[in-house]
């Protein structure tokens, strides 16, 4: 039987992840279906109701993939109770009668390269350590570059003169999926960096800047947050988002300790990204942003803990803040009203300054 690998969908990260597995495993990599209303319907149907939406989204994706004949599932979860999702999802899927192998690349909340290598060796016994390190290196570079460009887009896309960003960015992702080795990667990277930076923009001096913070999956998967970024960009807003894979995997462990010391209102890390979001709130206040949107999935315990503190900080500093809780509901009318009103309020405040 052919080995077919599948992994959950989140933002644009399926491109580098797929690239890595296609190079270091001897398996077929499934074309992961995009998250749609069917995904969340399937996920909610087989999930305990009180679990947060990332569980439901990933479970839904796994079911869709298993129906497409995937038999090796990869999960990367840790930090909060997401770390326990692995076992529960495995049990639910086995109970549904699927036959598969399930691996979690994260152990005890940390990414351990040794463990990842061990798992990959199990999937592909012929795996060569030099080769895997080489492709792992390129993948990391690719993730970092995609995050870098996405940050640039968030800051500038609202002000483009011709509609070029979206097309160039999706072309870039397409080229990345065809990358051969390091030289080919660097060529593509430089080409698109130049192209994207050359896109003409007109950014007014007193533009509206909004920071979005919150729970990681809901922030990073556009379907889970009703495309909040596109919505804000349509209003002409510059967006600052801290959470991305680069931050979570490579920067968080170093920065967290330093940032915690700079905060005088909390002493502990509070789990997952709660402390980071409190620090980011301080950053956004100190850097004169116009508003903060805090977005999370319902029942996200670490973020519930951070909300009270964020609310107080914003109140003391006269900073508008909007808290949004996402669940598996698909209608976006009420959501739109809240975002539109938040934007209108900021715009009114700014005009009267």
């Amino acid at each position: 039987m052919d080995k077919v690998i599948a992994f959950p969908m989140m933002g644009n990260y399926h491109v580098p992840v797929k690239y890595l597995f296609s190079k270091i495993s001897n398996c077929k990599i499934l074309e992961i279906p995009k998250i749609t209303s069917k995904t969340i319907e399937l996920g909610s149907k087989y999930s305990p109701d009180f679990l947060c939406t990332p569980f439901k989204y990933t479970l839904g994706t796994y079911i869709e993939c298993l129906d497409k004949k995937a038999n090796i599932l990869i999960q990367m979860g840790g930090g909060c109770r997401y770390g326990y999702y692995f076992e529960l999802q495995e049990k639910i899927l086995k109970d549904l009668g699927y036959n598969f192998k399930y691996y979690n690349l994260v152990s005890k909340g940390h990414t351990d390269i040794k463990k990842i290598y061990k798992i990959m060796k199990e999937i592909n016994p012929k795996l060569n350590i030099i080769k895997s390190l080489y492709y792992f290196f390129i993948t990391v570079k690719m993730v970092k570059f995609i995050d870098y460009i996405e940050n640039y887009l968030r800051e500038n896309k609202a002000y483009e003169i011709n509609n070029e960003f979206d097309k160039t960015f999706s072309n870039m992702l397409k080229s990345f999926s065809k990358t051969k080795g390091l030289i080919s990667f660097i060529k593509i990277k430089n080409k698109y960096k130049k192209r994207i930076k050359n896109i003409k923009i007109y950014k007014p001096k007193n533009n509206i800047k909004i920071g979005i913070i919150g729970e990681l999956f809901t922030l990073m998967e556009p379907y889970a947050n009703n495309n909040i970024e596109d919505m804000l960009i349509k209003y002409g807003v510059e967006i600052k988002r801290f959470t991305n894979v680069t931050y979570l995997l490579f920067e968080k462990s170093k920065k967290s300790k330093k940032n915690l010391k700079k905060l005088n209102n909390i002493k502990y890390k509070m789990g997952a990204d709660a402390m980071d979001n409190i620090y980011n709130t301080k950053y956004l206040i100190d850097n004169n942003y116009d508003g903060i949107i805090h977005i999370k999935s319902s029942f996200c315990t670490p973020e519930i803990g951070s909300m009270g503190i964020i609310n107080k900080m914003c109140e003391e500093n006269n900073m508008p803040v909007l808290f949004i809780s996402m669940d598996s509901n698909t209608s976006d009318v009420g959501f739109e009203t809240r975002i539109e009103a938040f934007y209108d309020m900021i715009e009114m405040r700014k005009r009267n300054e």
Partner: protein
Amino acid sequence: MNKCYLGVDIGSISTKGVIIDENYNILSSNYIWTSGNPIEAVKKLMNTLTILPGYKLCGIGTTGSARKLIGLMLGANVVKNEIIAHAVGTLSFYPNVRTILEIGGQDSKIIMINNGIITDYAMNTLCAAGTGSFLSSQAKRIGVDINDFGSLALKSKNPVKIAARCTVFAESDLIHKAQLGYKKEDIVAGLCKSIVLNYLNNVGKGKKILEPIVFQGGVSKNKGVEKYFNEILNTKVIIDENSHLMGAIGIAILSSKENHDELNLNINEIKFETKGFECKGCSNNCEVVRIFKDEKLIDSFGNKCEKGLKTF
């Protein structure tokens, strides 16, 4: 010719329309039930609003949950959300207002204002606890006309305690108390009090409620709810005689800020129709809403991607 402006606020329960002149005086207004059909409700509303001789209509604004649809239908020059509309409307009557409490059919909101600028707002989250539709459904259940609800609540000297967190708990409390034989007025008063507590706990959570406070939206017409707001906030909330029209007035004012020549408003002879259509482009199965004016497609929305527009 004097200029006048039309504002329409189409909520889930009621549809409000108002025509104002350049000094924001109300020339004509009406309040009717939406009854689940905003297009018919607006047609009915427009037949009762009159543009006085000597006036010409120079702006149309729509707000409320059906603002997009009705905006298209009326050819509105301003389509805006309820929060801005309510704030602008209230500020034109009470320029010093600091807090607006609003409880409508499906939404409830709190708006904080400082020096005529909105500084903060909050809306109820996904749950409809403590809104007008809950009150009216409970009124029906215990057999009290919603118009007598407030005056009945005022008669009570001993309101029953009802859980204020969630409508499901409130309802089971309510049934339980009724089965214990409490007087109807005590139950009704308890319900009014629970609406106030629920509102302050959920929507007003963590907000500083500063005076002057204006209370509006359909529920503000309920004397019982007013009484408990006064009692719990330990002050007197202002309720305007037009408190139910504030959204419509606000959106009419916003439409007047855009300079327009005379607009044509003739919707009676025109046929409007909404057709839902399920796009099969991907497994999202978006419900694309298409609006037809005299059988010609004028707009569509609801699609998540470009595919939805191509398929028809």
